[in-house]
């Protein structure tokens, strides 16, 4: 709310900044829509070219440009008080920290768990369901049960 809080003519927001909320011009909305569709086409077309490790980076880069367009114009962040953009960015920063720190950790220890996981998978023994805790009704003890009777068709 950097604009004056007591705008006398709330009824005419089209007059621009300073008198009520900003109205995004229709031409801008349609241009953003066209750009988003074009970028969607681009990201699908990019799958026809194998660029190795760059595949994911390019797909995420295009998605981020699209997300930025949506946030700036459709979500109005470009015209609004920077506080809203700050809140939004804070959420993204924490998701980034969350994912990157978890990745650092899992990539550090995966080499230790992989041999163990492989023996488990290769043994061919399907994981048995966890036994129900005491006091629960025994719902799953019938050995003659037929799973997937309803899954046909």
């Amino acid at each position, binding site marked *: 709310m950097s604009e004056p809080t007591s705008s006398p003519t709330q009824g005419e927001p089209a007059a621009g900044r300073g008198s009520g909320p900003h109205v995004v011009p229709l031409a801008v909305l349609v241009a953003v829509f066209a750009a988003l569709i074009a970028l969607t086409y681009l990201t699908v077309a990019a799958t026809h070219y194998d660029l190795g490790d760059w595949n994911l980076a390019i797909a995420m880069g295009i998605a981020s440009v699209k997300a930025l367009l949506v946030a700036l114009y459709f979500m109005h962040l470009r015209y609004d008080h920077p506080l809203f953009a700050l809140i939004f960015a804070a959420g993204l920063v924490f998701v980034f920290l969350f*994912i990157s720190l978890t*990745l650092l950790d899992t990539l550090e220890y995966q080499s230790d768990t992989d041999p163990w996981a492989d023996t488990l998978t290769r043994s061919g023994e399907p994981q048995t369901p966890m036994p129900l805790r005491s006091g629960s009704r025994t719902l799953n003890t019938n050995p003659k049960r037929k799973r*997937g009777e309803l899954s046909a068709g």
Partner: protein
Amino acid sequence: MTDAKALPPEEADAGHHRFLAHHFDSPEQQFYTGKLGMWLFLTTEILFFGGLFCAYAVYRANHPDIFVDGHHFLSTALGATNTAVLIFSSLTMAWSVRSAQLSRTRGLIACLVTTLVCAFVFLGIKYVEYAEKMEHGLIPNRIYFERLEPRLAFEPDEAYLREKLSHYADPSAAGEDLDLRVRKVRIFFGIYFCMTGLHALHVIAGIGVILWILVRSLKGHFSSAYFGPVDYVGLYWHLVDLIWIYLFPLLYLIH
């Protein structure tokens, strides 16, 4: 309040705008308070989805081959169509906010109806995709239903998985046999259904709130003096679009 004088007479009520809550000084203060609350909510939504994106990142970093195998089961055409539908619905949602700001009630109603139609088209395409997976028992449910109600459990159609995967070379460096790939690829469907399922729930919730806005629009509640709820629902709808913008390449466009 000074603002009450500027309001159209049919909306002024005892010196107050009829939708101005008594604890706000002005409609503008009410509008920005709601907007701040909406942005805080959207941030929690980003963190909410962030957990699933994190699960995705961990699995893909450790087992990229599962995702290459898994994406063969998704239709890029359907995914791209849904992306276009959702982007178009975002345009009409932004347009309805604009219409409300300009007190164009008929335009507002038309835009909201179009957005709703797009939401249903999105869910319809999603239904077609889900039905095909569920037909082959690929929905992750076994552990849950085996304990609770075995008759409802979907049995993964291993023959289908094997037949389909046999057309593609093993993407992993390990040179795994087909049986192992068939078993591992189910991890992909677990992640696929959780991520797109939570997103679809958000689309359904979006349909609910857009309907609410539509009913209020038909009652003529919104004008340039009061359009906060349209704006807030619009922000929510754009976030649903924004999350799909990332889901589409992450799930459909792996190569």
